[in-house]
């Protein structure tokens, strides 16, 4: 297979980037998209050029590290992560445009690598549960219906890759934040922080400069893990009740 690659090249976060076109003649349909870029980079290194920088880690579709906005879709034309996308999804001779995630809250570090630590800060704001010291609790001590556990698990499958932000015309992070809120809101283990969690995480999301959801549902269609916008409705409920009833206590609790 032969493909033409239009890749966004940018030296650093403060530099101006532009597209550069590469002709790639050694592509096998069995290659993953990232392997195809590896081959391109090997060629570039041999020629003494700067290789294309892109994020990747597990290459098994579970870590959320890979990104890339390919031909107008985060993670490319299939509903999967870029590492699980293969070149057989493209036509011989096709021109493939590769861009980084575009969001103010995800500044470009270099080429196709963006800084997604905004997600970490949202998690730190409220995406945790209290685990007190003591003996190991019995695994089945707290009864949780299977359906609820599954629903929470579905929300927890969010790998935090940021495809929802990339797909959203408003660069809104609400699918990510709602999945993280849902996985705790559904379970009894999430109850201690429940009243403050949504309020804190939404406040952090706003502070990071993400947009507001306009319910286009593009995120749901592009999410490699199929996270549903039902979670966004749940986040809204959690947030409204959180805002109305949080911080009723007078003691500081060490804060």
């Amino acid at each position: 297979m032969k493909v033409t690659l239009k890749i966004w090249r940018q030296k650093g976060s403060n530099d101006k980037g532009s597209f550069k076109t590469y002709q790639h003649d050694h592509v096998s349909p069995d290659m993953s998209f990232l392997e195809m870029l590896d081959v391109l980079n090997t060629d570039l290194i041999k020629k003494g050029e700067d290789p294309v920088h892109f994020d990747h880690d597990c290459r098994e579709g579970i870590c959320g590290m890979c990104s890339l906005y390919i031909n107008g879709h985060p993670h490319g034309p299939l509903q999967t992560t870029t590492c699980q996308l293969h070149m057989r999804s493209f036509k011989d001779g096709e021109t493939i445009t590769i861009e980084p995630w575009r969001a103010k809250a995800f500044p470009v570090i270099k080429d196709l690598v963006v800084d997604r630590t905004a997600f970490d800060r949202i998690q730190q704001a409220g995406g945790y549960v209290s685990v007190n010291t003591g003996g190991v609790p019995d695994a089945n001590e707290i009864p949780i219906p299977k359906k609820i556990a599954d629903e929470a698990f579905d929300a927890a499958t969010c790998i935090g890759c940021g495809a929802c932000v990339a797909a959203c015309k408003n660069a809104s992070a609400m699918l990510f934040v709602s999945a993280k809120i849902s996985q705790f809101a559904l379970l009894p283990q999430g109850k201690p922080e429940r009243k403050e969690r949504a309020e804190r995480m939404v406040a952090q999301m706003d502070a990071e400069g993400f947009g507001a959801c306009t319910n286009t549902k593009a995120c749901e269609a592009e999410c490699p893990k199929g996270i549903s916008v039902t979670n966004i409705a749940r986040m809204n409920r959690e947030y409204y009740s959180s805002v109305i009833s949080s911080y009723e206590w007078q003691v500081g609790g060490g804060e």
Partner: protein
Amino acid sequence: MAWFTKFLSSTLGRKLLVALTGIFLILFLAVHLAGNLQLLKDDGGKSFNIYAEFMSTNGLVQFISKGNFAFILLHAVVALLLTVKNRNARGTERYAVSSSKSSIWASRNMGILGTIILLFIVIHLKDFWAQMHFGAVPVVDYDGKQVRDLASLVDLWFAKAWYVGVYVFCMGALAFHLWHGFESAFQTLGLNHLKYNAVISFVGRAFAIIVPLLFALIPIAMFFDF
């Protein structure tokens, strides 16, 4: 009250305002349509005029109408604030290639559709509401009762083909706005439930088709003198 102002300036607080005012405006549309449909009655505009006279003089209706104006403005202003925030959230660099197949057209163009509707409301208020309240509308006598003949004014405007065209076009924009807006309002309120989603979706889409269609049929019918 700092928590409350903070809430209303958060993205979700603003979305809530847009959703709640949107639902009020949906109810308003239904009431407005019920009144307008009386124009199709073959009684020389009598029942419409009596209804219009009641609506423009009744204290409670006038009170709700002031609220309605405020909600229209609030809906538009808060949506505009959100749109500005959303545009900034994308950053300075836009995507070179971007696919649209993952969302419906109306959902991506609510701002444009809303602007068309807002312009329509301004024209509409100038031509009818302002005439009724501050203009000189001829008076008719119904069994000794003096009633302003708004129907004749409507007749005058709806005899102009371009005016009917603009009216019908704006109702088309309204239909698309409602197609996304109705369902979207419920999602924003957090009212997303497998038991009721199908009902909300069906009612929303039926409302988005039927209401603007009936609104648009009135000037068409009056233009062709059905």
